[in-house]
């Protein structure tokens, strides 16, 4: 950044580059043409990826960040270009994913005058960003970009929006490209773990007979994985994770209970109910894992380790609170923990695993679980898996054991349908050598399906699996179980032939209709390397995900088994 005759757009691109941005996803428009031009004139190293929709661009940046731990940028135009990013920003925000969103904006003197494609994206996104900027002076650009990165990637990460009016990007830059940050109110450094609190946790652990470690996304973000594993092995405690904590502790480990919560494993939920100590690292005690907060861990000593003071006491009142970085806390704890007597507890846990395993019937139609299990076997679990949202997501979470951090990409807090495919695309850009699979439902897949083109253009060898039950399955399940099977607005009639969609893009389209074909077709997909493929898997239409803790119920109210289908009431529409 030595040349001084840059304009705003050019200094913006150079500043982003200086922060190590590798990829930028998005779509141009009037307000961003100067910035797109700067991508050319600066000869930047940043690779721009043209997407088909701005929402997909945000999920790509999100997937890239979750899979690599590094942020990517999104570049969109003003008005509709900017508003199309709202879902993706919200998805990243609630899951603490770093992201830089640069939006073009109408010229400064037109703001507030309903100019063409003027939208107050800065105002609209205020509650869903970690921070945001509307640039008022071209000379502020390098400082703002530096601040944006610092904010997005430190402490509890999150998205930062930078709104750039067109006159700002076109004006000459005469400022300091190395201008320092001005963030007097931002202190992301986690406080060093308080020794007295660490000792209190160690003492509580020593007294515990039935301890359980609960891990959330914080463990992955802070890379506390090794420390947590050593800790679990040392104190001999089982580990369960939230949907986003998957991969924070190897799920193939004997001490792993897999995921807990609404569709968690029966043994994880039962263990949670029985535990006398719950040691939570970096999970925000989300309502999908608590069930009823007042009934969660009623008799247990609850310990909450979190970097964000605003999470402490938000959902429940823990007995011990430890503010800090999950990794630093786990490492400090390792130095002082003793050996609690958990022999009987582990024995009991193993019995629970044996008595209440995940299971499904292989007969009576093709099951989603079968696909996930087979894929797991064929790949040895060595893949980055991005899911969409719905039944397929929960089965994938149950059956796909994640052993490494950053190998599991799922929209947890937001539950954003349409996340899976673009997240997988972003992940593959960041991890060229790794196998990347997206698992979507037929509903969510169609929300961002046009960006299959992006995967094709870049010949990304993604395996896009569509678990096709011709329904918005998860909603249909709720209607069946809690609304006397009155189906309303869930029938995805008119679905396309997804394999043919792939072919229309010149990509490989595969189809699975019978259990007998699963291995053969998945093998074919895994061998195919010259671009993306779609595997349209036509599964049983009316399967339900169990275990299930119904909304508003406590973990101990978990439903284990589907009720017999014979007794099902007739479909309301057919009554007449």
């Amino acid at each position, binding site marked *: 950044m030595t040349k001084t005759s840059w304009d705003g757009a050019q200094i913006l691109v150079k500043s982003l580059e200086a922060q190590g941005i590798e990829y930028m996803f998005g779509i141009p428009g009037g307000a961003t043409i100067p910035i797109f031009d700067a991508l050319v004139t600066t000869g930047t190293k940043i690779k721009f990826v043209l997407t088909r929709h701005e929402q997909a661009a945000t999920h790509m940046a999100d997937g890239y960040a979750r899979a690599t731990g590094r942020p990517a940028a999104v570049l969109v135009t003003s008005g509709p270009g900017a508003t199309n990013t709202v879902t993706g920003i919200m998805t990243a925000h609630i899951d603490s994913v770093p992201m830089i969103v640069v939006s073009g904006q109408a010229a400064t003197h037109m703001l507030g005058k309903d100019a063409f494609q003027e939208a107050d994206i800065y105002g609209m996104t205020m*509650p869903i960003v970690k*921070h945001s900027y*509307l640039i008022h002076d071209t000379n502020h650009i390098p400082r703002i970009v530096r601040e944006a990165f610092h904010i997005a990637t430190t402490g509890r990460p999150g998205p930062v929006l930078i709104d750039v009016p067109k006159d700002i990007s076109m004006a000459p830059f005469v400022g300091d490209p190395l201008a320092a940050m001005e*963030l*007097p*109110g931002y202190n992301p450094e986690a406080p060093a773990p308080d020794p007295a609190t660490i000792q209190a946790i160690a003492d509580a652990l020593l007294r515990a007979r039935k301890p359980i470690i609960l891990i959330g996304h914080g463990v992955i973000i802070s890379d506390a994985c090794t420390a947590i594993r050593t800790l679990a092995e040392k104190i001999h405690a089982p580990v369960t994770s939230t949907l986003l904590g998957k991969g924070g502790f190897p799920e193939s480990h004997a001490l792993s209970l897999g995921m807990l919560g609404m569709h968690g494993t029966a043994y994880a939920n039962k263990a949670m109910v029985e535990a006398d100590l719950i040691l939570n690292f970096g999970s925000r005690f989300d309502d999908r894992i608590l069930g009823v907060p007042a009934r969660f861990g009623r008799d247990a000593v609850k310990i909450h380790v979190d970097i964000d003071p*605003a999470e402490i006491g938000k959902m429940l009142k823990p007995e011990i609170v430890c503010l800090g970085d999950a990794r630093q806390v786990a490492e400090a704890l390792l130095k002082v923990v003793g050996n609690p007597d958990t022999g009987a507890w582990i024995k009991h846990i193993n019995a629970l695993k044996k008595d209440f395993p995940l299971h499904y019937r292989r007969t009576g139609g093709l099951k989603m679980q079968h696909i996930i299990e087979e894929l797991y076997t064929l790949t040895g679990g060595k893949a980055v898996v991005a899911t969409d949202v719905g039944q397929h997501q929960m089965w994938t979470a149950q059956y796909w054991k994640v052993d490494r951090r950053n190998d599991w990409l799922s929209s947890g807090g937001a539950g954003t349908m349409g996340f899976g495919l673009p997240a997988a695309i972003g992940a593959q850009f960041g991890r060229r050598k790794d196998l990347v699979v997206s698992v979507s439902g037929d509903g969510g897949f169609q929300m961002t399906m046009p960006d299959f083109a992006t995967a094709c253009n870049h010949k990304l060898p993604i395996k896009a699996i569509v678990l096709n039950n011709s329904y918005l399955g998860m909603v249909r399940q709720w209607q069946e179980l809690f609304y006397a099977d009155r189906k309303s607005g869930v029938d995805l009639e008119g679905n396309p032939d997804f394999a043919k969609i792939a072919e229309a893009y010149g990509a490989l389209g595969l189809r699975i209709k019978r259990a007998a074909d699963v291995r053969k077709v998945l093998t074919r997909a895994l061998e195919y390397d010259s671009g993306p493929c779609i595997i349209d898997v036509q599964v049983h239409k009316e399967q339900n995900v169990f275990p299930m803790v119904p909304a508003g119920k406590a973990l101990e109210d978990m439903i284990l088994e589907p009720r017999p289908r014979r007794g099902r009431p007739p479909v309301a529409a057919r009554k007449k």
Partner: protein
Amino acid sequence: MQNNFTHTLSVVVANKPGVLARIAHVFARRGFNIDSLVVSSSMEGNVSRMTITALGDPANLYQIIEQVKKLVDVIHCTDHTGEDVVVKEMALVKVHVGPAARTEVLQVADHFGAESVDMTESSMILMAVGDSDKLEAMLKLLRKFKVVELCRTGKVLMARGELPT
């Protein structure tokens, strides 16, 4: 089962655009009604001070304070409810009053240390400064006259002695 009462917070913020909107969002989202809000400059040029009084449940307020502290442009945020602090506000009151009752109004004003800052044949504006209780008491007495306009600044606060606010 909400246990509402009034809290007085002092928030020190970097003087950046949007910071007020962000703080207001946090309160609105959690159902806290802001009763009064005073934004003013502070000793340092690029730092502003806000004094916010709001009605709501203390447990909820704890969350709000933490959320407000999390905002990038917020330097600190403290709840001064129940602390040893000086809290003052100012009120302007316009009373429609002719020559006949003027003396009585002025007596009330005098008692509360209020000044008359404008006077016409038929009206008068009083300016009162002090604790909210004092202002309330004065307003109560003035009610028997024709009070037509009232404007209060909202509370400003400062910790007593050497304690910083």
